[in-house]
């Protein structure tokens, strides 16, 4: 497989592939430090360079819950996990090969994630008396000296001191100088993994354009980190991770929230409608707002509303006016929006409601990930208020999935829920991006003519049971819509019992009929008939896929399907499920899809449930799978 770089100098793999170079298939690095240490940036930079070199990869940042948690404490630790390789990578991985710990707290929090015998790179200055105290470690118990790390390889570098020495001449303040120490780490790892600095130098040039002193300092420290690897004997080995075999195409690296924003813009373009995004800031959805607000030249309207309710109400107004209305939030915000979602169901106007799920209930775990809002998406409204529910299964997949959510909303005149989660939102992976021409067309047409002789019936339906979209400004089609039950076709207020039951059924049928217009459920891997099906939805995709690959290696026959459409289910889903003796559903909740499937298809599906605010590791799924296959006893 041949690689061509664009926008980036071709990586000249160093000539001396001598005996101190090991070729690795895949590596998991965890960058960890205080939230002020810049580990997210270091991780992202290393990731982008790996992506440009053609490695397949998956990342997962682990943010501290508080924005300004006390420095040096366990609560202030910020982490970034990168899994990259010359093979296909589907998840950020399980145990790490390498742990970068900028201080004692970062080591303490992350050590249990490190493989036995793994490599630890520490900033020794982060283990002084003060840092030990802040991390709650006794001075006598300094892990760097007490022998507790004997089973690992430890590289101690006084990064703070070296950074300061490198910038001795710099006019920057000590505080500014210290902030550059993450570049030392980056440079050092680039040396260790044989990567060029060009991409990061270019990035720094953009980031600090107009701040020549800071730019100069960062580049100098980056190079110093690299040189430090070259000249010292801290590490005896260097590593090579070759490009991964990926399907041919053009790739870029992308994060989930970014992919979501792009999917929305793409849908708005394909539908020929301006995107109206009404939103209220909330973790972890806000980055969609930030991303969209950068692209106003695409006709994107971003409205930061006074609250969650206003956010969804503004998009109801915009949609009534003929734009593509989209709002996003996370669980607590979605809870506030539910009444307006019900209004959307009654009005039958297109809108997309994005839930970037986080740990719940209530405020729960804002910076952590969970899939526990599925019930809320399916059922969380008063009355019989059906809405299609579409879920993304990875950061890059968010693009296509949200595009599809927009398509359904517009073509079927209905609110649609799009489910993402914190893991997808902040995770990143290579994306084989499409061209505009490859994207589906979204067919919408505003109604401009009366549809019943001299009358206009706003709720007269087409064969999809969809109603006309007649926007203000269309002469002769003046009409009123509202949240009170309406008479079939005319849309006038009606309290008639028969009419109500009819309309309730009609709205349900309309959503169920969408199943005629979505692709059938396919298997991701494995035989179409057999003993075990692992069925997932959303961000569990990578972990399940990896677990399946491993299971097959170990002789366990297993198939895997990942749902994108949860309401309505694809038409063939029942048939697909009945072809397996056991259906196992891993979910980051207490079994919400499990219940839906049990009640819908009457199958004794089994759940693997994890509700820790953290994604599944493939190992956890594999272990459970083995347990479930070795016994006939069913786990409820």
């Amino acid at each position, binding site marked *: *497989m041949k690689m061509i770089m*664009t926008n*980036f100098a071709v990586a000249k793999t160093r000539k001396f592939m001598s005996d101190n170079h090991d070729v690795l298939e895949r590596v998991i690095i965890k960058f960890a430090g205080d939230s002020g240490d810049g580990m997210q940036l270091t991780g992202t930079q290393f990731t982008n360079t790996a992506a440009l070199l053609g490695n397949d990869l998956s990342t997962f940042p682990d943010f501290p819950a508080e924005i300004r948690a006390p420095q040096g404490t366990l609560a202030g630790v910020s982490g970034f996990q990168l899994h990259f390789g010359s093979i296909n990578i589907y998840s950020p991985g399980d145990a790490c090969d390498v742990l970068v710990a900028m201080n004692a707290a970062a080591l303490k929090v992350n050590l249990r994630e490190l493989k036995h015998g793994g490599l630890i790179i520490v900033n020794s200055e982060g283990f002084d008396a003060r840092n030990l105290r802040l991390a709650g470690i006794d001075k006598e118990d300094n892990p760097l000296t007490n022998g507790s790390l004997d089973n690992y390889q430890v590289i101690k570098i006084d990064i703070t001191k070296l950074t300061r020495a490198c910038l001795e001449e710099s006019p920057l303040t000590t505080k500014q100088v210290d902030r550059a120490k993450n570049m030392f780490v980056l440079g050092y790892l680039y040396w260790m993994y044989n990567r060029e600095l060009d991409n990061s130098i270019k990035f720094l040039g953009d980031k600090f354009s107009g701040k020549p002193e800071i730019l100069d300092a960062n580049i100098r420290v980056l190079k110093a980190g690299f040189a430090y690897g070259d000249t010292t004997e801290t590490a005896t080995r260097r590593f090579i991770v070759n490009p991964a075999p990926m399907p041919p195409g053009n790739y870029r690296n992308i994060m989930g929230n970014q992919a979501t924003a*792009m999917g929305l813009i793409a849908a708005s373009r394909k539908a020929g409608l301006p995107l109206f995004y009404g939103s209220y800031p909330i973790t972890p959805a806000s980055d969609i707002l930030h991303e969209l607000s950068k692209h106003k030249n695409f006709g994107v309207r971003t409205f930061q509303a006074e609250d969650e309710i206003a956010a969804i109400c503004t998009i109801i107004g915009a949609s009534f*006016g003929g734009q593509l209305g989209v709002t996003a939030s996370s669980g607590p915000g979605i809870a506030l929006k539910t009444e307006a979602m019900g209004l959307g169901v009654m009005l039958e106007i297109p809108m997309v409601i994005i839930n970037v799920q986080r740990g719940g209930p209530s405020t729960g775990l804002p910076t952590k990930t969970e899939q526990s809002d599925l019930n809320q998406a399916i059922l969380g409204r008063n009355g019989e208020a059906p809405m299609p529910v579409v879920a993304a299964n990875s950061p890059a997949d968010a693009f296509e999935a949200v595009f599809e959510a927009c398509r359904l909303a517009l073509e079927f005149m209905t609110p649609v829920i799009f489910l993402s989660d914190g893991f997808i939102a902040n995770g990143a992976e290579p994306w084989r991006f499409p061209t*505009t021409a490859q994207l589906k067309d979204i067919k919408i047409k505003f109604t401009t003519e009366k549809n019943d002789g001299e009358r206009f019936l706003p709720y007269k339906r087409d064969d999809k049971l969809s109603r006309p979209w007649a926007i203000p400004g269309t002469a002769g089609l*003046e009409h009123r819509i509202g*949240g009170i039950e309406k008479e079939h076709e005319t849309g006038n207020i009606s309290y008639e019992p028969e009419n109500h039951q009819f309309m309730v059924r009609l709205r349900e049928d309309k959503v169920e009929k969408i199943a005629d217009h979505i692709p059938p459920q396919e298997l991701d891997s494995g035989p179409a008939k057999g003993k075990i099906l692992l069925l997932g939805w959303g961000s569990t995709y990578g972990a399940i896929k990896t677990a399946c690959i491993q299971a097959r290696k170990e002789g366990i026959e297993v198939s895997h399907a990942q749902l994108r459409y949860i309401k309505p289910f694809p038409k063939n889903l029942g048939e697909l499920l009945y072809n397996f003796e056991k259906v196992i559903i891993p979910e980051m909740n207490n079994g919400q899809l499990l219940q839906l499937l049990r009640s819908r298809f009457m199958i004794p599906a089994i759940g693997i449930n994890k509700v820790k605010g953290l994604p599944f590791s493939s190992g956890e799924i594999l272990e459970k799978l083995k347990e479930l296959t070795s016994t006939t006893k069913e786990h409820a």
Partner: protein
Amino acid sequence: MPEATPALKPKDFVTDQDVRWCPGCGDYSILKQVQTVMPTLGIPREDIVFISGIGCSSRFPYYMETFGMHSIHGRATAIASGLKSARPDLSVWVVTGDGDGLSIGGNHFIHLLRRNFNINLLMFNNQIYGLTKGQYSPTSEEGKVTKSTPMGSVDHPFNPIALALGAEGTFIARTMDRDPAHLKEMIRRSYDHGGTSFLEIYQNCNVFNDGAFFVYTEKDTKKAETLFVEHGKPLLFGAENEKGVRLDGFKPVVADMKDTSNSPDDLWVHDERDRVKAGILSRFFDDPATDGHFPRPFGVFYIEERFRYEDAFNEQIKQAIASNGEGDLDKLLRGRDVWEIH
């Protein structure tokens, strides 16, 4: 520019729906005046949108032959904000009540005012919850005995005019259902204002709060208890305008104009653009039963020209296109760093 439609008559704005308010309700009069004003605006019906929330008043859109939405409780203002942002070309009207607008929808109400969309907000204030059959509202007077407050309400009420001023409103006015000429004029002036127009309309709920405003609306007390303010005119009231208001520093004082030592030249002359005086005027809000109270003002308290949200909002789109060019989707999807695999 929308074409003028001189041919339209008030009846062209009447829908085929039966009006369902209680007989004698003040809402009828408001509906009639709105339907009277509409044809004079020169806007085609299809460019007009009425949006309401929940409450008696909120049935309004169903009776207007325009585009309309009867939404959910308290949210008409937020929905209208989205619509007006998306479609500045439309004439957007919000119909709300004291409960819908100031209680459940209080937050959107203040934010609508500060953003200053060109939206006309008609707030029917009847100081009671009518649709839910008679509980006190956020404008009900202290001690109000209702179904939910048999021992009297312990809530202190809002002063809607003062609230609108505090929320940076740019057009703030009060009128009443039982003075059709004034009502009509105030509706028209609300429309004429280029930003958010807040019109508080005292409306009689003859079923649950009958006579709440009779002291202002009925013949025998109206002249003495109301103060109709007009820009550039002195503040006068009473059966024969025999009373005036002058300012002693920032303190309003009622002057007996029959007393010749009080010169009409010393009276407070209403200035719609004077925010400080509008603030003082908004405090003419005391209980008409108390001694030394001031008459209740009607008319336009305050007007200010300020940029409109929808203009600035859409201007940014134009600016972004001017400086970055019309968005190129393929370029956006490619991003900065791309690699190709063959």
